[in-house]
């Protein structure tokens, strides 16, 4: 006789709470609770081999309330933002934005599997906040010095090539009204923290 496996109530509750938490962090309407575990996402994902859980399995873990496992997973950090899964998902789940939300929570709780991705995002955003524009040379130089010293010898001729072709400026471009941008972002940070 086949007996339907029903999650004990405490597991179901933890799962529902976590789904709601991630849903609230997602920018659009995530529809995460609609997942039917079909696996179209993992099957469409060009970086699935590098992930410790495919998106489908990650959503199953979320539903099972395995908050810690999910937030320590490298899956969101391996997401390329290519949106293949999003257009293929039969339930219209905003998978890419859910991955962003998971990264945001992992950033807040420092549960990311390694700091290369978070660092890159942090430096990029720090410069964008300061200047109002991204600063390609400052970002890559700092990032390679911190994380990829062995790649530097290979990168140096490339940087010179880009420089020679006029594709890299040394100084960052800056917007005029940095005060306005920073005031907006300060308020946005407060609102985000107050959630």
């Amino acid at each position, binding site marked *: 006789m086949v007996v339907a496996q029903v999650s004990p109530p405490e597991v179901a509750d933890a799962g529902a709470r976590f789904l709601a938490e991630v849903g609230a962090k997602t920018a*659009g309407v995530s529809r995460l609770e609609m997942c039917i575990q079909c696996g179209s996402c993992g099957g469409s994902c060009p970086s699935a081999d590098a992930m410790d859980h495919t998106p489908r399995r990650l959503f199953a873990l979320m539903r099972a309330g395995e908050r810690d496992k999910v937030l320590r997973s490298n899956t969101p950090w391996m997401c*390329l933002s290519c949106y293949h899964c999003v257009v293929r998902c039969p339930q219209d789940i905003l998978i890419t934005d859910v991955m962003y939300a998971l990264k945001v929570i992992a950033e807040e709780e420092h549960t990311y599997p390694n700091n290369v991705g978070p660092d890159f*995002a942090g430096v*990029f955003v720090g410069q964008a906040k300061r200047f109002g524009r991204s600063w390609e040379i400052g970002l890559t130089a700092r990032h390679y010095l911190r994380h990829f010293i062995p790649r530097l010898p290979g990168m140096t001729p490339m940087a010179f090539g880009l420089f020679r072709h006029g594709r890299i*400026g040394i100084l960052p471009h800056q917007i005029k009204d940095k005060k306005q941008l920073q005031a*907006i972002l300060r*308020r*946005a940070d407060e609102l*985000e923290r107050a959630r």
Partner: protein
Amino acid sequence: MSSYLYYPGCSMEGSGRSYRESLEGICEPLGISLEEIGDWNCCGATEYVSLSTTPAYAMIARNLAIAAGQKKADEPLVAACSACYLNLAKADHYMGAQPALNTRVNDALGAGGLHYDPGTVRVRHLLEVILNDVGLDKVRAAVKKPLTGLKVAPYLGCMVPRPDVDGTYTNHEQPNDLDRLLRALGADVVDYPLKTECCGGHMTQVAPKVGLELIRRLVAEAERREAVMMVTVCPMCQINIDAYQGEMNAMFHTKHKMPIVFFTQLMGVAFGLEPNKVGVGREYTNASKILAKALKAAPELALAAAGAVPAAHKPRPDKRALPMPRMADSEVEE
């Protein structure tokens, strides 16, 4: 002259400079004018949304608010960079779909004396504007030096056809938009099934093994399809495939040498502008020689194609062979 608001994005001022130079060159022949929005800021790429939600969207929305204040009548906001386009379109879309996000973002914008009502500004990608507003007839009419015989792989990348928040695309995985445009320039567009596969985005910076493998697939396939260059619509795709090809070759012990240029550069060249005026030669894997060779050979090829010169003998298919399907759109003039 139709006018549009224009959001360049940070790459256009740096590594994607040839995109901007070529775009400036083709506006006049296309009969469009682009007005840059005032004091725009970085869209945050895929980095800010990975760090904090409300600030990321507030940063994007500042640009939308500026555009809303600057627009005349129904002027849409055009972006050429795929990531910028998607961020702007998504912010507008999600602020409309998620009232809580809208409230928080507008509260933040208020701290800078700005406000944005979702739906006010229509965000569009440059390629779609050229195809739908300008139209291929006008593009064809502007061509002075057809790129006949230049075998190109049309590489659209991810963020233009997907996730397609405004429902512009009927085909998210194999759209033929870029193919049609390049064919209108006279180019020989190869069938390139990886046209919307990912270049890896920031993976060359955070997980090089993953990123370089994705670049390898794209370049190897373009080469297998006998393309002599790839053509893109996105500064991120361009720099990944161009500048990281050397590191990719070292990792996989390959010797690929595939140039990649922006579609606007080929438009400029076909419209008769000097290649160096539209940024050709700024690539790390140089496209100048291939392009010069093609331009030299093109007039004869074009005459042959038009039937003025007897075409080389076409081998008849083997009588015993099965009838093979042919790609209709490569035979028929759209």
